[in-house]
């Protein structure tokens, strides 16, 4: 099991390097970054002035068919048609996930830029979306990265790590001892 990071549109290299290092440390898996940037123009919706995350997931799945896990990272504003925006999206128990820094930036909320805070938020959202690809659902535990976040400040309140229960499920999933159907039968989860 390994994770491939794919830059979707222009991104600072240092941010991707930091993300790769942190994900490797937190998940205990090898993390490599794809050597080139993929364009996102084809998933742009001019009416919404946003980018379709579901189409990005389809493309990552198709173009990186040999990867066990692929995480697209973008600075573009993502959406799915029924929602106004998403921080990221993932295939539950699948191979692909995508995460955006657009709404994690302080500047969007009229606050001064904070590079460190942005990197922390990105690591948490990347962990959250990758967690879904390992079959994890939203968790009610406030000390778990799988707790749902619908605005940036909520991301700050949670840690970058799984709670003990989700960590155990993650490890079992990676070791091939847990299937998705079992995961879905777990105890209540909450946003």
């Amino acid at each position: 099991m390994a994770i491939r990071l794919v830059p979707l549109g222009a991104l600072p290299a240092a941010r991707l390097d930091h993300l790769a290092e942190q994900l490797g440390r937190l998940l205990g898996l090898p993390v490599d970054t794809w050597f080139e940037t993929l364009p996102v123009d084809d998933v742009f919706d001019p009416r919404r002035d946003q980018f379709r995350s579901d189409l990005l997931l389809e493309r990552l799945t198709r173009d990186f068919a040999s990867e066990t896990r692929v995480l697209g990272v973008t600075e573009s504003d993502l959406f799915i048609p029924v929602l106004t925006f998403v921080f990221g999206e993932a295939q539950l128990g699948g191979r692909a996930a995508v995460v955006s820094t657009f709404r994690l930036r302080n500047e969007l909320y009229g606050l001064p830029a904070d590079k460190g805070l942005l990197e922390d938020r990105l690591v948490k959202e990347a962990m959250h979306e990758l967690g879904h690809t390992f079959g994890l659902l939203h968790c009610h535990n406030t000390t778990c990265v799988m707790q749902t976040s619908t605005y940036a400040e909520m991301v700050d309140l949670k840690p970058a790590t799984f709670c003990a229960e989700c960590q155990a499920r993650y490890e079992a999933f990676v070791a091939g001892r847990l299937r998705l159907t079992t995961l879905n039968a777990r105890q209540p989860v909450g946003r």
Partner: protein
Amino acid sequence: MVQIAAAKDELRILVVDDEEVVRTSLERWFTEDGYHVSTAADAAQALRELQVGKFDLALVDVKMPGMDGLELQRRLQEIEPSLTVIMITAYASVDTAVQALKQGAFDYVTKPVDPDHLTHVVANAVKQRRLALEKSQLEDEVHHLRGACEFVGDSEAARKVMELVATAAPADTTIMIRGESGTGKELVARALHQQSKRRFFPFVPINCGGLTDSLLESELFGHEKGAFTGAQYRRKGKLELADGGTVFLDEVGNISQKTQMDLLRVLESKQFTRVGGSRNVDVDFRTICATNRDLELAVKEGDFREDLFYRLNVFVINVPPLRERRGDIPILARHFLAKYARAMSKQVTDFDSEALLRLEMYRWPGNVRELENAVERAVVVTRSNTIQPRDLPELECSVTDPADLSMDAVERRHMAQVLQQTGGNVTRAAELLGINRVTLYNKIKKYSLR
């Protein structure tokens, strides 16, 4: 304990939208949140899904080809009235939203919806559904508890009592319930309270017969701190606790002359003072009282104040003894059987025919209370799913009053004895009696021998 089934991970959501991307997005969104999600591309598929599956919540798109969301909402709620429906619309139309809410939709969201708003709308719907389930389950519990305290019967005598209750309950007048011990006078009082406009206020029963004069005084009127040795705190009396509701004075014929005078004063002025106090307390309650004593005789003999008697004896309900409504014995016996089988979690469903015959033939001097105790005991001791004669206490069976020498009474007594001898076998009993089976069946019906 109330079990609530709607834990979040057991909730089933149906997403109905003609756009595939909306269906898959919402399916993924809610699945990640721990819900069980199904999708339908149009109204017809949604109706099919609802026929085969159970759903708690439906998210329905307003604009769909064919049957639109509003029509689908009506049909979904016809099939499953408890279904919570949230409408999704791409056009923020106030008319559509108002119509949906008027039809019973829980809420509506406009596409594209803010993720935080969607989360809150669904969480609120789940919360409301949970409360509705809790309410329904608590109502069931209350219904069972109330059912256990109902005046039960289908005989002419029982119906007459229930008719009088229905007539007197709304009138807010003072009621005197008379009848032998164990006939269910308190049940009649509770029925009067439950059918009155005071039903949302307390029903306070007071057993006047079991207390000494001073205790009864303190029980009725309460006391101030230091009123007597041991009165460390002010305590409200039952009349004060019953404010707005009903006071049931059981065995009112047994109270002393002094308390009779105090009670009369309260009934006339609706005011009293607590024991050891000086301040008047205003109260508003309805009085229902009961006695098995011959109060007219007590008045004649000077044991009961005449003025209090007339104050209490406004509307009289006579509760007949069980021997005068034998036809109710099987109904009452089965009612108590269900009550105690449920309370003891035992699978006892009915009476063996001979056991029931024994219950019907006994005189029941202790009336319904004695019958209830006999059935409770039988449910405890039985090892069968039907109550057997051996499960019942020793009952000296005599269908009619031995002193009653009328032809009907003698015939009834004789037929009951023969039926008991044959273990309830009607064909054999008819042979022994020298009459045909149809005649015996008619007599059994006439004398309520079954």
